[in-house]
């Protein structure tokens, strides 16, 4: 166990644990857009930046992404230093210029005092903020169906060759964890479509209720050694709500 100071309060942390984990455990609100516990931190959105210093640094401080910075003994962290707040609003300003229509971005920007961007708005843009949560989750789950394509300002998330991806099983994890709800999908009448690919849902033999796609069920059954019958069997309990 080591000790670090966050916003004036001394707290315990495990050596090497990421700062963000400690900060969140202390119930301090630090915004993030590219962070998800299921995947490795990437440090892309830069919103979780905090000011750090140490007594022996002679007043010098550094600005680091807390999601990737390992806690070290004696570290003094300020999660809302003036410079940090300015950085966050500046970054949110950039986001707002690129995605002026995204309600999620507008709300977060407003929290940091940015109601309208000072930059040139991109009118025909989309709401993908390129956080990479979707592609990283897809990789972690082992499908590797979608990835980042291109680079720089023109980067986008897409399936390979922009065609319906073979590897996708329609688990919807990419769409459900998208911070700006950008990824479109459609579920109706036992059919599901995402990334221009159509799926049939696995239905309960008795009640006909559907939960996941047939492809996903088959994948799990095959790779995870689960009886396929399990997926075609829904008892009354799931009928809630």
């Amino acid at each position, binding site marked *: 166990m080591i000790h670090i100071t966050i916003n004036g309060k001394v707290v315990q942390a495990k050596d090497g644990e990421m700062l963000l984990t400690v900060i969140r455990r202390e119930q301090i609100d630090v915004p993030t857009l590219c962070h998800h516990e299921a995947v490795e931190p990437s440090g892309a959105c830069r919103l979780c930046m905090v000011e750090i210093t140490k007594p022996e640094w002679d007043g010098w401080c550094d600005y680091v992404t807390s999601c990737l910075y390992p806690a070290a003994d004696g570290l003094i962290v300020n999660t809302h230093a003036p410079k940090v707040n300015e950085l966050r609003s500046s970054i949110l300003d950039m986001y707002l210029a690129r995605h002026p229509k995204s309600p999620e971005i507008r709300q977060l920007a407003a929290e940091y005092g940015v109601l309208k961007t000072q930059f040139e708005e991109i009118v025909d843009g989309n709401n993908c903020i390129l956080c990479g949560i979707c*592609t990283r989750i897809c990789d972690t789950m082992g499908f590797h169906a979608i*990835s*980042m*394509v*291109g*680079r720089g300002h023109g980067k986008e998330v897409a399936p*390979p*060759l922009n065609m319906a*991806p*073979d590897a996708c099983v329609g688990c919807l994890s990419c769409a459900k964890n998208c911070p700006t709800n950008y990824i479109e999908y459609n579920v109706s009448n036992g059919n599901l479509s995402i990334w221009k690919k159509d799926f049939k849902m696995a239905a309960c033999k008795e009640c006909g209720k559907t939960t996941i796609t047939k492809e996903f069920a088959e994948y799990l059954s095959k790779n995870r050694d689960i009886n396929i019958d399990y997926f075609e069997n829904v008892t009354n309990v799931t009928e809630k709500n």
Partner: protein
Amino acid sequence: MKHDFNKLTDIFDKYPKTQESLIAILQDIQKEYQYLPCEALEQTSDVLDVPLSKVFSVSTFYNSFSLTAKGEKVVKICTGTACHIRGAKLLQDQLENHLAIKAGETTEDMKFTLEVVACVGACAMAPVVVVGDKYHGSVKVSRVKKLVKAK
């Protein structure tokens, strides 16, 4: 477009079958076909056991790869700093006007593809235009038309 994909096997055989070889293989494919055909990407993914999405990421990330077929001759205008201040923009303007295409495009007859590249490392001869494999240094406006004279 139909391609002879037998050559792919020769390319694959040159390298160990790991992700480390991915970029080298793609470079060889690019050299062979002047671009990366879809089928080649799919085969690469299979042979190296690297997900197709990763292969696609890599082939769109790096400048030297192209997913669309290129013309017989690729005309590269160097826009390195030295070339820029010695008038690369003007050469680009002239070439675009002359070939009636924008940078990055290919002429309809598939003869020329016009590209701007970051730096070809021949800064002392700025401005530089590379036609095919041939480097042309200190290019003047008056020479532009000669450079892309159709054969």
